[in-house]
């Protein structure tokens, strides 16, 4: 059945593309407007609000942040090769339909008809209440929260990445750097406890100095490429940038909870990787950290709009809904801004919904491993927020990976137990106030120790060339003194 005429806004910086789209949409019988840039129309007052935006990838990239200014119309993207590869990611940004470039009249007509026959997708933050793990009391549609998230997205798009390193972790890092007995393995062990630090090192390894080389994802591969001296420099810079100003006071407990959940999940992902014979379990560890890197950014945003922290440090209600609904997308955006490979972004975006990915491809298998780890950790009771659901079902995730469900559950329980056991022993060794002040970092260290007990330490020591190891040790006391 033919849909009623809808006001279509055509956007493309290229005059010829616009002309072609105007003809195709016009012949489809829809009234239309056209602009070279989305922001131009959004900023004009008194203009009619379009029902549908038809744009090319260039216009979308430059102006997607203005979508809300149009009241979230439906978006049809004329997709080039790159856009087709990023389809999942674009869908999350709000694109509802795709037509291949160059598009024919008939094709555009059919895609538009199909789009208009579907129910409109709710705006992204409003969707949070229905997202996995969302609590019934979630108020994801609060305009203040929506505006804050939109602002965060705009900042990320501009490359202004939020700093959300855990403060105590920065202190711990300095402690390792200042310890003459610390090895390169200790350094990497400390760095890998914090997604922001890992991301900074990996970003450096994929940066302009290493242009033309294959992208790396894992911390160890990145460390091998840049050398231990650079790891120290980058990690310290990142820790200082965010660590000592970002998270303070009551919110620390929220951050700590998220970090615990993230790091435990990453450890479980690494162990699953070993179990299923994945070729790079360490990369899985890093990928799991990256997948949740948006959580702290969202909490930071939430705190920034003046919301009170949960008394017990457990995100719930509105914040839980925000985290459940948005963290994967924000993680993916942050990774994009960091220049991470598209596969890493896709993993972040899909790590709670791996069903769209085949377990037979390397990317799909990695996604299922992350999903299984996350799901098993939640099922074992280590939740990042109240009401977080174990999705996908751990039994399905285990079966997909060829694991026994009981084995997966045991794995998660072991890692959580090791974490908690170390936390308890660390608390006993420290005076009460010290234990509270550094609790987060000590927790993480405990988990690392557990890993070391399995012989991971030896592996870590072996992954950096000896000359790099030698560089670290004499340099540390000086660096610590300088700081």
């Amino acid at each position, binding site marked *: 059945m033919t849909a009623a005429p809808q006001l279509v806004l055509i956007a493309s910086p290229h005059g010829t593309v616009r002309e072609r789209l105007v003809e195709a949409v*016009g*012949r489809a019988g829809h009234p239309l407007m056209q602009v070279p840039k989305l922001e131009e129309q959004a900023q004009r007052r008194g203009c009619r609000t379009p029902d549908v935006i038809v744009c090319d990838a260039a216009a979308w990239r430059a102006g997607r942040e203005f979508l809300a200014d149009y009241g979230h119309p439906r978006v049809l993207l004329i997709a080039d090769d790159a856009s087709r590869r990023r389809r999942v990611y674009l869908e999350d940004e709000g694109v509802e339909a795709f037509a291949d470039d160059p598009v024919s009249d008939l094709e555009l007509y059919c895609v538009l008809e199909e789009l208009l026959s579907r129910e409109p997708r709710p705006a992204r933050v409003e969707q949070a209440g229905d997202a996995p793990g969302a609590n019934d009391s979630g108020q994801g549609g609060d305009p203040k929260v929506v505006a804050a998230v939109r602002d965060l997205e705009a900042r990320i798009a501009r490359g202004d990445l939020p700093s959300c390193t855990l403060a105590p972790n920065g202190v711990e890092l300095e402690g390792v750097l200042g310890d003459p007995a610390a090895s390169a393995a200790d350094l990497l062990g400390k760095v890998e406890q914090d997604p922001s630090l890992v991301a900074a090192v990996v970003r450096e390894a994929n940066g302009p100095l290493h242009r033309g080389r294959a992208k790396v994802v894992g911390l160890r591969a990145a460390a091998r490429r840049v050398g231990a001296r650079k790891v120290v420099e980058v990690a310290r810079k990142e820790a200082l940038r965010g660590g000592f100003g970002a998270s303070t006071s009551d919110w620390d407990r929220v951050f700590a909870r998220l970090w615990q959940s993230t790091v435990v999940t990453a450890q479980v992902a690494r162990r699953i990787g070993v179990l299923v014979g994945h070729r790079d379990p360490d990369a899985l560890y890093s990928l799991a950290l990256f997948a949740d890197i948006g959580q702290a950014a969202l909490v930071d945003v939430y705190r920034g709009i003046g919301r009170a922290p949960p008394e017990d440090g457990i995100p719930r209600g509105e914040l839980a809904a925000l985290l459940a609904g948005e963290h994967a997308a924000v993680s993916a955006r942050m990774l994009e801004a960091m220049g991470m490979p598209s596969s890493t972004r896709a993993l972040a975006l899909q790590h709670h919904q791996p069903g769209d990915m085949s377990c037979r491809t390397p990317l799909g298998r990695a996604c299922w491993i992350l999903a299984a780890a996350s799901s098993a950790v939640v099922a074992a009771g280590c939740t990042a927020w109240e009401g977080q659901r174990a999705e996908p079902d751990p039994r399905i995730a285990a079966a997909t990976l060829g694991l026994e469900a009981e084995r997966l559950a045991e794995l998660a329980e072991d890692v959580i137990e090791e974490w908690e056991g170390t936390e308890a022993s660390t608390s006993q060794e420290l005076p009460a106030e010290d234990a509270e002040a550094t609790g987060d970092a000590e927790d993480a260290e405990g988990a690392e120790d557990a890993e070391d007990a399995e012989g991971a330490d030896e592996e870590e020591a072996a992954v950096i060339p000896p000359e790099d190891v030698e560089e670290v040790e004499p340099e540390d006391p000086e660096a610590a003194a300088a700081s």
Partner: protein
Amino acid sequence: MLLVTDDRGLATLATSPVSGFRVEVVPAEELIETPSAQPPALVLLDVEQAEEFSSFQLARTLATSQPEVPVVGLVEAGDMEEALALVRLGARDVLTKPVRPIELRRTIARFVGGLS
């Protein structure tokens, strides 16, 4: 019967011997803004209108608001793309301009009947 055009030359079609029918001539833009209260027996829709693409918009509007009204498009000979676009939007047939009276009578007879 409605002849939707803003072309004066084509409007002379209204004086063609289509006995038994009252033919009104209106531009597409006007019909979009003010739809006729009484559904016409047939709409002859000239694709070329002063307001670009308004004929297609009218075809879509009629297809959704008055789907029972047959629409016959009038296009320049050889303009396949516009003819196809009209058919996609529900036009029952397309005639090429200049329209021959005999062809017009046959078409009207086919969709409305009653003409000999």
